[in-house]
């Protein structure tokens, strides 16, 4: 194994290797510095930050900023902390990701295995939907949500993200299923399986890698979205990103940087978690979906 691996890389001398690793270490530090600043400053009292010690470790460690950001900080007009908005985000992300992934899989299945007249046009339009800038749909979408009675609600946000997400999830699954042997579908048809049975028993169990890609992609995009959240939500349905902005931008009182840092880390944690848990499959799935063989 070791000899196999070393035969595939270009051999370098000790000197150049030293240079390479030094450079890598420098870049590593450079990229991790912001995270370091956020973490250390979220764990020290405000007075230490105001005293000008941004880069230094806390002399007095405290989790009070985290507690404050979570449950007592002033967001907009109410001192609720980020907790209710975090829940809003969860309530928005989970159904939006789940439904758009399932629908994307279903679309991909139909577009590759049950071809119909005009299927390429349908796929083309879905693809087009992926690349429409968000700003263009704001006003028509607001009108639609109003008509549907979903304006300013979490289900309304779920709907918006669902509509936007289907294009991408369809693209992923279609490309993946394109390489899925059609003979399997035909064999299942002869065995007597129907449309949904084939989907559930044959296609879905083999869709693990692409489902992970789709979930990571949708989760990150929807969780991090600010524009739709800011445009289509009320005070009680705002997602985390909007709430974080309100926390940081509040113009009254002292700016509690340590609380802001803690809140920002909280807002980023779920996407980080998803990457850590499923990231291994992400690269593999991306390859599986896009490259032949």
């Amino acid at each position, binding site marked *: 194994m070791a000899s196999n691996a070393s035969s595939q890389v270009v051999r370098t001398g000790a000197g150049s290797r030293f240079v390479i690793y030094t450079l890598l270490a420098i870049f590593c530090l450079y990229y991790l510095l912001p995270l370091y600043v956020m973490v250390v400053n979220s764990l020290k009292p405000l007075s230490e930050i105001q005293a000008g010690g941004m880069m230094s470790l806390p002399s007095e460690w405290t989790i009070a900023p985290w507690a404050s950001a979570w449950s007592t900080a002033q967001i907009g007009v109410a001192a609720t902390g980020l907790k209710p908005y975090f829940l809003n985000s969860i309530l928005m992300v989970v159904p939006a990701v789940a439904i758009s992934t399932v629908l994307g899989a279903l679309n991909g299945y139909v577009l590759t295995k049950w071809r119909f007249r005009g299927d390429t046009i349908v796929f083309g339009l879905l693809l087009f939907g992926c690349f429409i800038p968000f700003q263009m749909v704001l006003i028509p979408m607001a009108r639609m949500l109003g008509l549907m009675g979903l304006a300013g609600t979490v289900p309304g946000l779920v709907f918006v993200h669902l509509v936007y997400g289907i294009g991408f999830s369809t693209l992923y699954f279609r490309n993946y299923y394109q390489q899925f042997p059609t003979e399997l579908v035909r*064999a299942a048809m*002869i*065995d007597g399986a129907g449309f949904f049975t084939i989907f559930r028993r044959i296609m879905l169990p083999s869709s693990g890698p692409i489902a992970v890609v789709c979930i990571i992609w949708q989760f990150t995009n929807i969780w991090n979205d600010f524009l739709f959240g800011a445009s289509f939500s009320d005070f009680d349905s705002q997602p985390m990103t909007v709430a974080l902005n309100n926390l940081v931008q509040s113009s009254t009182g002292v700016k509690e940087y340590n609380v802001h840092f803690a809140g920002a880390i909280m807002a980023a944690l779920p996407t980080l978690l998803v990457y850590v848990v499923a990231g291994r499959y992400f690269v593999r799935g991306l390859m599986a979906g896009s490259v032949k063989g």
Partner: protein
Amino acid sequence: MGFLEIRNATKSYGAVKVLHETDIAVEEGEFLVLVGPSGCGKSTLLNMIAGLEEVTSGDIAIKGRSMNGVRPADRNIAMVFQSYALYPNMNVGQNMAFGLEMHGIPKAERDKAVSQVADLLQISHLLDRKPGQLSGGQRQRVAMGRALVRDPDVFLFDEPLSNLDAKLRVDMRTEIKKLHQKLGTTIVYVTHDQIEALTLSTRIAVMFGGHVQQLGTPKEIYDNPANIFVAGFMGSPSMNLFPAKVTTENGEAVAKVALADGTSATLPFAQERSMAGHEGRDIILGIRPEAITDEDGADRNSKAIHRIEARVEVTEPAGSDTFVVSHLGGKEVTGRFRADVDVRAGETFPFAINMEKAVAFDPETEQRIG
């Protein structure tokens, strides 16, 4: 009435007709092989029998029941695919039971049927494995097991051996034949390999360009090809085809064949293949390599062995035989000599030609004359 009947069936994609009017009646227990080069319409025809492709016009009936508009699942057929098409997420047992499960057979009965077929195919020890953990030959067996377990009216095989290596292919071929003899099932088998067609079938349909060129037993197809395409496609090395002229000599019709040195040789036709009435006509003469031999290797039962002297161009020792290439009628001609005959390239050597096996074609229509 046949067990499986294809009546005037055609298939078109838009304006392109990929299968022209086809009539084949298959009896119960028959092993029909559809053979032809790629794009000849053989797989399309198989898919039409399976119900995976619709019939554009005409009709396909199984057991007297028209299959037009009947779903594949309701035709009581089973199919073995080229890629085996085993469900990757299920183990072998589940793969084999899937069709039964879909048809609402209770679990106890499914398990019984699966274990019976697994015993028959000697794959009982593989039932808990996933397809990814099997070798090519094992996958092939499982694919056949999945078809057998359904106990269908008709088995459809779509080039099932083409993904196996040469040795395994021969073994599996024998095994399929044994299985057919043992179970007496009705099989329609698609292949592009003419050896498979000849060894397995009870009848062969040779297809080309969306037409059935000839339908008959392997012997009929091999000995009496209906046209030049069938003659050239079936048999390996393929039949020698070269121009000749029919003339009369001593009151009998003979073929005059030009030799490489400018002279010509005379080959009298065998009695049962007399060309009387075609005198003066140009023909394409077809003689299989095994009918062009060294003199001692000639068929002793034949009453029409004729000797001609010709120059040997190349010799190709192939172990059991030596193939000898010469020129007749301006075309390269291969003869099949015994392995130990002392023949060298460049020499003039006597060739023994068995005219009982010679066939003649019209050069214009490419159809058989006599």
